[in-house]
Structure formats: structure tokens, C-alpha cells
């Protein structure tokens, strides 16, 4: 049955009426018009749906709305105001995307990694990014972009 929820998304309070089991992925996509967060597998295996929960990367397809409370959710739309987060800028500099579908999830995982580790090694990057699949095979560019972002002075 539908319940009323107040969420903290991208720094704004958003209210929805949904079934409490509804994953944040579908709340974002179907109810809040935030479609940057993508559906890829629904079982936390591909990473396309990655968002930040208090700055940590989580798979929103496995995160029921009832478990979120007033914790801070950040989506790709809220990662930066002007699309100029160091990771986004690095992605553009390396012209990473091909089809582009998985890239929001890749960026959210990468930016969460850099929140915790401003100078990740290759193996740090490999393990943090392991859950994000790219069928187009942009992995080498993603790694290069993460290193560029890590070296950028705007990273705080």
C-alpha cells in the first residue's frame, strides 16, 4: 500500500507516495523525473543505478525507500550544479562515453571512490569499479579519467 515519504535528494526535500518496498531507483526514475540514474539489471550486478547515500556509492535498485529515512541521497543530476565536478570534467576531457548509458553509474562510483581516496592506485580503481559494467568497453578511458580527476586541484 502507498505510504508517504520525505526524501533528501540532491539537497532538496522531495515528497512521494509509493509502496514502501519501492527501490530508490524507481522512485527517482518514475516519480521524481530524475532519470539520470539508470536501470541495468535490478540485482546490484551492473552498477548503472549507482547513487550516493551520504557520499558513499550504493546500488539504488537494492535500496528500498523505507530504508532511507532522511539520509542524504545524491544522484548524477546533483553531483554538481554546473556539471563541473572534477570527475565529470575528467570524463569530458577524456571523452569517455560511447553509448553513454552506464556512465552516470560509473561517474557516481568513481566520485565516491575519490571522496574516500584522493590518490587511488590502479588496483584501488579496479576494485572500486568492479561492480560497474560497460558493454562498450570504455574501461581504460574510465581509469585514465579517474586519475585525471584525482590529480585535479578542484578535488576536495
Amino acid at each position: 500500500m502507498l505510504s508517504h515519504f520525505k526524501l533528501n535528494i540532491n539537497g532538496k526535500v522531495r515528497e512521494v507516495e509509493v509502496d514502501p518496498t519501492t527501490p530508490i531507483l524507481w522512485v527517482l526514475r518514475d516519480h521524481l523525473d530524475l532519470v539520470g540514474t539508470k536501470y541495468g539489471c535490478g540485482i546490484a550486478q551492473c552498477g548503472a543505478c549507482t547513487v550516493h547515500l551520504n557520499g558513499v556509492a550504493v546500488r539504488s535498485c537494492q535500496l528500498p525507500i523505507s530504508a532511507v529515512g532522511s539520509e542524504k541521497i545524491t544522484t548524477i543530476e546533483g553531483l554538481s550544479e554546473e556539471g563541473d565536478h572534477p570527475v565529470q570534467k575528467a570524463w569530458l576531457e577524456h571523452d569517455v562515453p560511447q553509448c553513454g548509458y552506464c556512465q552516470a553509474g560509473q561517474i557516481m562510483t568513481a566520485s565516491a571512490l575519490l571522496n574516500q581516496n584522493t590518490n587511488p592506485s590502479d588496483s584501488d580503481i579496479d576494485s572500486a569499479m568492479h561492480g560497474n559494467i560497460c558493454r562498450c568497453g570504455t574501461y581504460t578511458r574510465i581509469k585514465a579519467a579517474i586519475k585525471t580527476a584525482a590529480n585535479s586541484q578542484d578535488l576536495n
Partner: protein
Amino acid sequence: MKVAKIKIGRRSFIKSSTLASGGMVLGFNWLMSCDMTPSQVKALPKEWFKINGFLKIGDNGLVTIMSPNPEIGQNVKTSMPMLVAEELDTDWNDVIVEQAPLNTTLFKRQLAGGSQSIRQGWNSLRMAGATARAMLIEAAAKTWNVAASEITTSEGQLIHTLSGKQAGFGEMASLAATLEVPSEVKLKDVTDFKIIGSSRKNVDGSKIVTGKPLFGLDYKSENMLIAMIVHPPAFGMKLKSIDDSKAKSMPGIERVFTIKTHESGYSLGAFDNDAFNEIAVLVGRSTWEVMQAKKELIAEWEMAEAKVEELNFFGRNITVETPAGLESTADHKRILEKMSIKKAKVVRKDGNPEAAFKKAVTIIERSYTCPFLAHNTMEPMNFYADVTEEKATLVGPIQTPEIMEQSVSKRLGMPVENIDIQMTRMGGGFGRRLYGHFLTEAAVISKEMKQPIKLVYSREDDMTQGTYRPSYHAYYKAGLDENKNLIAFQVRAGGIPESPLAANRFPAGAVENYVAEEWSQVSNITVGAFRAPRSNFIAGAEQAFLDEVAEAAGKDPIDFRLELLTKAESKPVGTNNDYVASRYAGVLKLVKEKAAWSTNKNPDVFRGTAAYFCHNSYVANVLDMIMVKGKPVVQKVYCAIDCGIVVNPDAATNLAEGGLVDGIGHAMYSAMTFKDGVPEQNNFDTYRLIRHGEAPKEIEVHFVENKIDPTGLGEPPFPPVMGALANALYRATGVRQYNQPFITDKPLAG
């Protein structure tokens, strides 16, 4: 400069004002409603002047270029407009790119497939720019009362040096739009290119990294409902009945019903293949609610009968035979083995292979196999449909809009003119989105609902629906004489349900005695084109086999291939060889040089090589493998490519890098297997795709520089790397790899 007569698609260049209204670039289109990229510094013009179907120029000189073809990640939305902008001679910073609507009158071949977009758009797109440039010059000549021949252009400026007059394109656009389209135009010489050949960023880059709605799954409209399907759980089964009593009472559910994608008597179009014609449909207000109701739908299935259908493939009638029964991978393996030892249909024969094999001192025989593969585009199949009595609006990711338009027209009994298909960016294609049954399904569902719907496949629906890469087998036999020369070569290739044979490709043409045979075995598991169809297996198999032949001949694997290619160039055997031996050798020589093949002898690096020609382009690889804790790791891949003129070098490099990663991934890890008709993998927990840490640590892509008209890159870099991988694995582990995926079945090393 070369003068080109405007023969190709002349109607495309006719001024829009002379065309019937509708179709063109007018009217609201969701795809065009996205914000422009922030890099657009100029304000929008007050007025746009349509010069032709491909472009309009604003009064301030901004240019909007329509990108005609579907974008699946191959970057044509950037590279195709680059061709227009080059000949228009505008400043790329003044260009806005829009996805063109489907319009078969204005645009030719609005299709993404076969790596053909750039190759086939090369002339028409350049002419679109060149005719517009000629009309702008003509307008300036009239305005300034000078000879058109005295006017030059540069980066959006018209210049008359003699009088010192200069004007921006925007100032002449209104007059230019009223002028006659020239009957012939001058195209630039390759050496004068400023935009073609210089890297330009993906025009959708900013939208992608900020999560803007670009994809089919992102589309929504007022009153739109979500539809999902339930298809049979096994190939060889069909729907018998549904019990929807619980499902339809679930929260948010509007209706549950069944549809037939095609009614009986429907004549199948080129891309109407579909494993499951009758499916159950659930329609509701939100995706999550429909997903929950889907679990509560009780369906009864029964065995499907065998059937034979005719499919119209671009005017050619193809018979599609679907047997009854429940197939398993174990049966398939037995079939592949059984068929591979039988004589098959001879497709090409040169010399006398039988006699040559008898004469041979050394005989090498090997067999290679690969499994079915699911495309697994990251964006699952989906489509939006709003079908009313009068018209059908369809929005979503489709590689074949102009072909599916015909299918929908036939299925709905509605004239093509009343069907509007809008192309979204695609979250991957790889051939899967050539087959638009999901688009037809969406239209049928919307018609039934009398309401707009978005059809959404779950990952499981998508992965278990079929349209797979076929399972193949290739048997090879080579004969060497006492001097270790290759004197006889046999390939017998087949598969379920088609053969991967390319009889006229290398080493055909390089061996005096050659025979190529093919066979196939029908199946009810549906297949479709998968990135570099057929080549995606046969290239790796052939290149792994040639590696063994070179080894038996005691020759360096690159030199061995080069010797054969020299022969194929100087004294080709047969007349139908479908490759240019010198270009083939060219990529091998380039990769040999770049990888320092002859001098880099690090004992800890195990190198494999391969080269292949398909989809009009040539690719050669050197793959470096190291062993880390007893496990093989791909350290670096060198790749040399000859695809003619490279339009957008960095984007082309990106596409090649992706093809290499994708090729390594599929050869190494991926497989779709079956038990009694049921796919044994249905999501990424059971189906393995390559992941970050498994990708090569480094990739180096080099292009052969020449002035040959460009060919495509979506497919060619994908197949040969599988051979280079197998060959490197052999050197690293001492074990030859014959069956994909390489990682399963047996320990690789240690």
C-alpha cells in the same frame, strides 16, 4: 578539388520550402528539447534559415546540422555532422547537432549496422555541406555584385579579397535559402580538410555526464503507463493460457492481457524475427508495481509446433525454419561435433586440395567452437508508443527505424505517413536493436490500451528473449610441404543455425590448393546479427589456427602472414578474394613496428598476434600478456587499423579500444547456455561480461594514414583480438585455446 554531380539523394538537398509541410525539422520534438551543451557560446539566433534537409543557418551564423543516423555509441552523431561542417566550411564551435527525424524522403539509409554509416554517408553528407556553401557564396555574389568564383570561405565567413568585403554565413543565410540548388558542387581535396581528421568531442558528452534524459528508457509523456511482458520460459514453448486473477488486482495495475506481435498471415520483414510471438502483457502506473504484478501472473505454457516462415530480407525471400523441441547446450555440442566431420557444401575450391594434402609432409588439423551470446546492451529493450485511430508515435532506441516503420505500418494497418518514429540515443546496439519486435509490441499494446505506454523489458526478459549470436564450429586443416611451405588449406565451418564461413577472405587467394565448406543446423533458439556477425568467431578461430601453422612451419607468426599476403598480392589464387592484400599487410607491418615485435624480447611478456579484414576495414593486433600469481593478465594491446581517412581520430580510437575490450571479454568470459530450452543465464550474476580489472592495462591504437574514402569502425576491431588473445594465452600457459569462452571448462594455467 573534385567536382561531384549531385546524384545521390538529390531530393535531400532540395530546399525545405518546396517540400510538403511536415517531416522536416519543424514542430516540437522531445529529442530536440534537451538543453544545448554549455559550450555553445553564441546565443540562439532570432531566425533560422533552412538551406536543405541536413542543415539550417541562423542569422547570427550558428549552424544546426541534422545527424541522420541512429546513435548507438559509435559516435556518428558527432562524426556525421563533421562531414557536413567540413564542406560547409563553418567553425565547429558554431555547430549545434540535432538528431534528425526518420524521413526516408530526405535521408538515405537511416540505419545503424554493418559499420556502414560513415562509409555510406561520406558523399551525401559532404555534398549537403558543399551545396549549402555554394548557395551562401552565390548569395554573397549577388549581394556584393561580384563573381561567385572570386569569393572564398573560411570558418563561417564569406570573403571577397578583391573588394575587401566580408560577411558571416548568418548574414547571407536568408538569401541563400531562396536560391536554386546547384546541380554540381566542388568537394574539398583531402589535404584541405580542417575538421575531418581532427578530434572533436562527443556532442552529447555534457548531457551524458550530467544525466540528462537521452535514452529511450528515459522518455515519458502525459498519461503514459508502463507495460512489461512475460514470455515463454523456454525456446520451443509457447503461451497456452494465463491466470491473471491475482496479478490484475495488484496495486497500480490497469490491465493484464495477451498479444500477438504478428497476426497469422503477417509477412515478416527483414528484422521481424521473434522467438515468442504470443506474450502476456501487464500494464500499470509505475515500473516497480508492474514488476511486482509480473511475479503474480500465472501462465501455462505448451510445446510449440515446428514452423517454416518466409522472411523478406531487402527483397530477397529467406526461409526461416523453426523446429519443435527443447534444446540443450549438451545436444548442441554433439551436433557441432557430428556435423563438423561430415563433408559439407563446397563454397570455394582452388587447385586440387585432395592431391595436395596427400603430398603434404606435415598435416595440422584443429577445431574451434563458440557458444551463443546475448547482446546485453546496458539499456534493456524498450519503446514508447502512442497509437490512436489516426496516428502512431513511437519513440525509442532502434537501429532500423526505416525498416520497422514498414513493419508497424503493416501490423497496425496504418499508412506509413501516419507513423512517426523518433530516434533516441541508444544504450548500446551491437546488432540487438536491428530486430525491433519490441517496437511492434509497444505499438500493439498502446493500440489495445488506447493510451500511451512505455514497454520496458526487465534484464531477465531481455537476456532470455533470444536474438543471440549463433553457436559456431570451425574445422581447419593445413598441409605443409618438405620446405615448410603452406600448400593446402581447408576450412569447414558451420553453426547453429548458420555458418560463419567467409570463403573468399584470407588465406583464400594466398594458397594454391584451398577448399572452403559450410554447413548449418536449424534450431528454435533465435539468433541475430551480433557486432561483426560471423567474423566475431571465424576471425579468432582462423587467426589461432594460422598461429599453429606458423609454429609448425617454424616461422615468425607475423612474417608467416606477410609472406602469404605477398603471394596473394603478386600472384593471387582465384578471382573473388574480397580483401586488398597490400592493405592487409600494411596493418600487420604497422603493428609489428609499433609493438617493436622484432626487438622487444622481454621473457616475462607473452605476445600473441592476429589480423583480420571485415566490414571494409583492416585491423592487426599484438597482445601482451603477463602472468600474475599464475593468472594471465592482459598487459597491453597494440592495434593497427586501416579504415581509410579517419574522420574523428580520438573518437575512432575510443571505438577501437572498446572493440578490443569487448572482444577480449567475450572470448574470455561470456556464454549463453541452455537446458531443455531454458536459458541458464538470465542476469549479470550468471552471465559474465568483462569488468574493469580484466580489461587491458594499456591500449595503443594506430591508424594507417592514407586518402582512401573512410570505412567503418564499429565492428572491425572486435573480432581479431580474440585470436591474438588465444595466441598470447598459448605462449603464457603452453595451452592452446580452442573453445570459447576460454576461462571456463579447464584451468588456464597453474
